């Protein structure tokens, strides 16, 4: 694996303002990770998690206050403004609010980075035509941004960001201002950019479905720290961190909420367990569902029924969870749950905790 960006213990602090004067604000703390060349890496986190700071460090709009940052095999720290400008020219960026030049036509918007990069006029015209064709808005070349829809504006943004053939494209919440249908179109365009040009894409987002649909790698951030990072499937399927789990449940509603658990327990006597469905370990294909079914079948005294859950694909691999109600002799139930725990993650819903304190008396 070759990395195009590597963070080594990178920190970024801003001087405090107003009431917090003198107290630095830590936007990033001790971040270490690599962005693999040719990958689509998602950086996910809630607002204020430090995602935007992270991209602004990559294209050197801001400089780290600690640690080492290497972009395109060049160490950023210690570079002069002129060198940094050259580096920025080789990195494309698209934005949530598109940030197009309203006073320039679509083709002039796309041409601008080429002018900055010093391309001769004739080559510029050909390149602009080619780019507009690629993003599918060749017919809008002479229009102004205000005449375009959000999706068209972002296509212009993408064409403009790709103008100088950058190896790295940064997308800062690029679909957050778009409706679901347009989001899908723009995401598939980004995927196409990655596949056809081999452009490494860093997708900053707070939406898990964006990560799920195009990213192969993901980094989860919270309060300036990197919580976990790795292949999307691994991070999703084996999430340890509560924040990561929260993101997962925001896109796949597979785990019952406490309210649902309480309702289920009222409706179904027996033991309630949530079993994680994931790729069977080591096999590389198929889910562990087959093993789970066989195991359940080997306990004929236990009656099982699925009462909640969802199984879907992440990065083309199975993922989700199923909540079962298990009824039968206690000894069998204990043994079964123990055996299931060997196979996958099993969450038992304790009979007492889901109900409120008011129910305490009724149960006695």
């Amino acid at each position, binding site marked *: 694996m070759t990395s195009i960006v590597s963070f080594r213990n990178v920190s970024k602090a801003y001087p405090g303002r107003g009431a917090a004067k003198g107290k630095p604000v830590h936007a990033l703390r001790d971040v270490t990770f690599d962005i693999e060349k040719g990958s689509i890496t998602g950086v996910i986190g809630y607002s204020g998690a430090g995602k935007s700071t992270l991209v602004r460090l990559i*294209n050197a*709009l801001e400089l780290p206050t600690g640690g080492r940052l290497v972009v395109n095999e060049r160490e950023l720290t210690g570079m002069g403004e002129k060198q940094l*400008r*050259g*580096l*920025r*020219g*080789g*990195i494309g*960026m698209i*934005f949530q*609010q598109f*940030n*197009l*030049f*309203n*006073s*320039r036509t679509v083709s002039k918007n796309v041409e*601008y*980075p080429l002018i*900055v*990069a010093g391309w001769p006029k004739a080559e510029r015209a050909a390149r602009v035509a080619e780019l507009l064709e690629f993003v599918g808005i060749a017919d809008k070349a002479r229009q*102004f*941004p*205000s005449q375009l829809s959000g999706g068209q504006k972002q296509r212009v943004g993408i064409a*403009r960001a790709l103008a*100088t053939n950058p190896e790295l494209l*940064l997308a800062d919440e690029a679909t957050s201002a778009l409706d679901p249908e347009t989001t899908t179109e723009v995401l598939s365009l980004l995927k196409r950019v990655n596949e056809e040009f081999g452009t490494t894409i860093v997708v900053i987002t707070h939406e898990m479905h964006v990560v799920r649909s195009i990213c192969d790698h993901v980094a989860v951030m919270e309060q300036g720290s990197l919580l976990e990072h790795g292949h999307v499937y691994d991070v999703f399927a084996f999430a340890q961190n509560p924040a990561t789990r929260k993101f997962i449940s925001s896109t796949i509603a597979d785990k019952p909420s406490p309210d649902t658990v309480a309702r289920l327990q009222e409706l179904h006597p027996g033991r309630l367990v949530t079993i994680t469905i994931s790729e069977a370990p080591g096999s590389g294909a198929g889910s562990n569902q087959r093993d789970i079914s066989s195991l359940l079948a080997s306990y004929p005294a236990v009656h099982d029924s699925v009462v909640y859950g969802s199984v879907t694909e992440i990065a083309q691999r199975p993922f989700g969870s199923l909540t079962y109600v298990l009824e039968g002799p206690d000894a069998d139930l204990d043994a079964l749950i123990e055996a299931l725990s060997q196979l996958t993650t099993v969450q038992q819903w304790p009979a007492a905790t889901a109900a409120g304190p008011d129910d305490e008396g009724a149960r006695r």
Partner: protein
Amino acid sequence: MIDWTTMGPQLADSIQQTLFMVIVTMIIGGILGLLIGILLYATRAGNILQNTVVFNVLNFVINIVRPIPFIIFISLVGPWTLAVIGTSIGTEAAIFPMTLMTAVVLGRIVEQNLVGVDPGVVEAARAMGSSRTRVLFDVVLRESLAPLVLGYTFIFIGVVDMSAVAGYIGGGGLGDLAITYGYQQFNYAVTLLAVAVIVVIVQLAQLLGNFLAKRMLHR
């Protein structure tokens, strides 16, 4: 009433003097105002020429000068007018204080329009590797062209107003005509005439300004 045999040429002279004062002021004061505005913008904290001292001094001078009533400002800068123009009375002498006041007021208007440019667009240009100077001219000034034109149109009306006061130091013009023949000789018709001509000039300027701004706005 109006005796056109004498008033006709008088009116023509006055219109000419007013236009002369206004146009020269708009050109010189306009350029100076643009420079002051750009300097204010550039010396702001976080911008290309970031300089707290220059910014604060300029800011202070503008805040002091702007509220001075123009008729008092004329006599305040009288010694400078004499030094620069060679006389402190007449049409040319009126242009000097008019230009200074216009530059100061415009400086503020230009600065506000530049500051109003979407920071996201500035960031986009910087992310492409554009230098800060380049961003200022290619992006900030260009993106604020339409509001700048409207700002200049707004100032034009203020300059016409100043030109009327210039009659006080022998600047002539339509204001002087209205005061000398209309007010002092109790000829209300002349006052009305001067007002009518001023209204026409201002309306024409406003129409032109709106037209240009609309062409640049692309909304």
